[in-house]
Structures are given as C-alpha cells and as structure tokens.
C-alpha cells in the first residue's frame, strides 16, 4: 500500500536528528511498548509481515507521533484483527486507569489467522531456479499493491543491475495477509542515483533487496 510508512525520497521532514548515544528506551513505557510489539505476532497468531502491515495501517497522523506509538498502535491493530482486544476495550481501560468510572466493553471472540508455516524465521527454499543472475539488467515492475509489499515507491519502474543473490525468503506480500509463505528468490539490485532522482541527483549508488515478483528483464 502507498502509505505514510513508504518514506524513501519524500521531502519536507527537515534536518536529521542529532546522533546521540542514548539507550533503547527513553522512558519505562517505551520498554513495555517494545515487548508488546515484539510478542504481538505470537499473541495474535500473526507473523512479522502482518505486524509490519499493521504498522503501515496506523493513521498517518498517529504514525508520525513517534516510533513507539506506531509500534504499539500497530500491535493493537493486529490484535484487533485476531479478536484479542478491541479499540473500545483499550480506550475504556485507558479511561479507567486515568480514574474515570466507565464500563468495560465485552471481550471479543479470538479469531486467529491460520497459515501453514515452513518453520521458524523467514529463510526458505524454492524448487524453481532464480530467474535472474548477477549482472542482469532488471526493471522494477509497475505494481499497484493494495496490501503489504516490500517494494518502495521510489524504485518502481526504474532500471537497475542485479549485484547479489540473497537467500530465498518468505514472500511478505502474501504472508502478511495469511495467504501463503510462497517463498521467493531475492536479489540485491543497484540503481544509479540519476535513474532514481534525475540528472541533477547527488552521485551515489542505491542498493536494495527486491523479491523476484517485483522484477522483470530490462527492455
């Protein structure tokens, strides 16, 4: 989906933050947020890709509040999808924790997704050989995914060169929706910055990992 999460190349966010040597959690609630998100796939019967897709569905105004907010919000969306909690319940509990005497809404009926898994992690194998080899020129397909994808907007329809074959992996576009793991070959593809951003671009190389269904031979 073309959401707020797909940030590559967007303009208007201003200066980068200062490099600081702080630890992972500025406040205790952030640590708790981390754990809820880290366990959310297990709690909701989802997977890493479904969790990422849930974060992508966080409304843009909430997404930009900050990392741990979108992380928690995403975890909640995945748990709502699986009938673990409802937003009404979370809001009622928040109100009660703030000292308001509001009734607790009914608990939903769990409805966890079922999808066969090829095991732990995301590295898999595939019977068909890779379609592309190192050195091949490839064009990124003009896809219009309605759901989850790991194909960022800024490389769509661009032409690059395969520079490495990466391990075959669970395909996020189908696994996020509990359709199937459908493992796919994965390639590191290098793009000249001018192919991405025009002739006036800073000279550099952009390397990105793309799954085979995103690619076609360059014309």
């Amino acid at each position, binding site marked *: 989906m073309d959401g707020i999460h*797909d*940030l*590559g190349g967007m*303009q208007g*966010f201003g*200066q*980068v*933050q200062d*490099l600081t*040597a702080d*630890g*992972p*959690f500025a*406040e205790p609630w952030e*640590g*708790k*947020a981390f*754990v*809820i998100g*880290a366990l959310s796939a297990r*709690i909701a019967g989802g997977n890493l890709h479904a969790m*990422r897709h849930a*974060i992508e569905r966080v*409304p*843009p*105004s909430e997404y*930009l509040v900050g*990392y741990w*907010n979108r992380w*928690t*919000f995403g*975890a909640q969306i995945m*748990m*709502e999808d699986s009938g673990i*909690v409802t*937003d009404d319940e*979370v*809001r009622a*509990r*928040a109100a009660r*924790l*703030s000292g308001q005497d509001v009734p607790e809404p009914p*608990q939903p009926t769990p409805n966890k997704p079922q999808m066969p898994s090829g095991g732990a*992690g995301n*590295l898999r194998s595939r019977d068909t050989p890779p379609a592309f080899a190192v050195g091949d020129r490839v064009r990124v397909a003009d896809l219009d995914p309605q759901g989850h994808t*790991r194909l*960022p907007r*800024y490389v769509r329809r661009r032409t690059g060169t395969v520079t490495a074959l990466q*391990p075959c992996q*669970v395909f996020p576009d189908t696994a996020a929706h509990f359709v199937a793991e459908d493992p796919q070959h*994965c390639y*590191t593809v290098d793009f000249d910055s001018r192919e*991405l*951003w025009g002739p006036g671009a*800073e000279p*550099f*190389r*952009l390397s*990105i*990992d793309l799954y085979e269904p995103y690619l076609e031979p360059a014309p």
Partner: protein
Amino acid sequence: MTSASDHLDPALRVEALASLLIERGLLDEATIETFVKTYEQSVGPMNGAKVVAKAWTDPGYRARLLADGTAAIAELGFKGPQGEHMVVLENTPTLHHVVVCTLCSCYPWPVLGLPPSWYKDPAYRSRVVREPRQVLREFGLDLDDSVEIRVHDSSSEVRYMVLPERPAGTGGYSEAELADLVTRDAMVGVAKVAVP
C-alpha cells in the same frame, strides 16, 4: 477499528493494552522485565564492536566475516531475531556504505541492539536514499567527492552492518581497546571511528 480521531496518549495506550493482555494471561510482568533488561544490557552495539575489533586484528576472521557474515558473527555468539542473514559491508578510503530501512526501521539487532531515534526518524529514512552526502554532512561526516557512496535499503530479511575503517594510530591497541573505540553510528555508516 482504531482510528486517528481522539488521540490517546502513547504511554496510556501501552498501559491499557498491557493491562488487558496481562489480565488475559497473554503477557506477564516477568517477561516484560526480561526483554527490557536483555535489550538494555546484553544486546547492543557493544556486540558489533567486538565483531569489528576482531576483524581489524584477525585477517582470517575478517575474510570469513565478509564472505559469510551470519556465520562469522555467530562465532562470537551473536545471533537471534533480526539477524537471520547478516551481510557485512566493508568501508574503505574510496567506498563508503550507509544503511537505512525506508519502509520501517529494520536493523541488525544481535550486533547493534535496537535502533536509535535518528535511524527511525522520517528525516533520515526519507532523505538518505535521495541525498546521502548531504545527510552525512549534517551528521558531521564530510566525505571527499572522490569517495563513492553506496546506500543500502534494508527491504528484505537481510540485515546489514558496516565494517568501518580502522583509524590510523591504533597499531598498538589490543582487541578490547579497539572495541571501545567502535561506535554504533560507525557500524550503520553515518560516522567514522575516531581515536580520542
């Protein structure tokens, strides 16, 4: 369904969600404490620093690290979530690697821990794939025009870590002293390792 209307304070949302999950037996305080302690104390850039220092002092290890990052990193005991397949990128005087995740905030947890704020921030994620030299300059790293920049967008389950250049004047340093010099920022590629 959750919506943006009626914004809930993030800390309060976390407390509310945690309280419901604990009540349902899906989460417990001991698990929360264990996870937080692990990522505050044991899983962080000090792990990656050990990998770098060993690569600087042991040519055989360096070769293994660049050929098969996952296996060489596991030799030092570092593996786990978000480190399933590791690729190590060697910075040189003529080639500078820098790592980002534009779609979320993918990061090699076993060697670097959880990502810092600047890495997760929209400014870094949006800009480093468009104007990396300018972004590095804002971070205080002014690379010569002759240095080639290669930006890596972590869009699959492959995780990248940069092997920075060993700074001059460290010939007499022990491996442990070298590890003390290595910073998280250098292993993402937004800084160089400096001698104090």
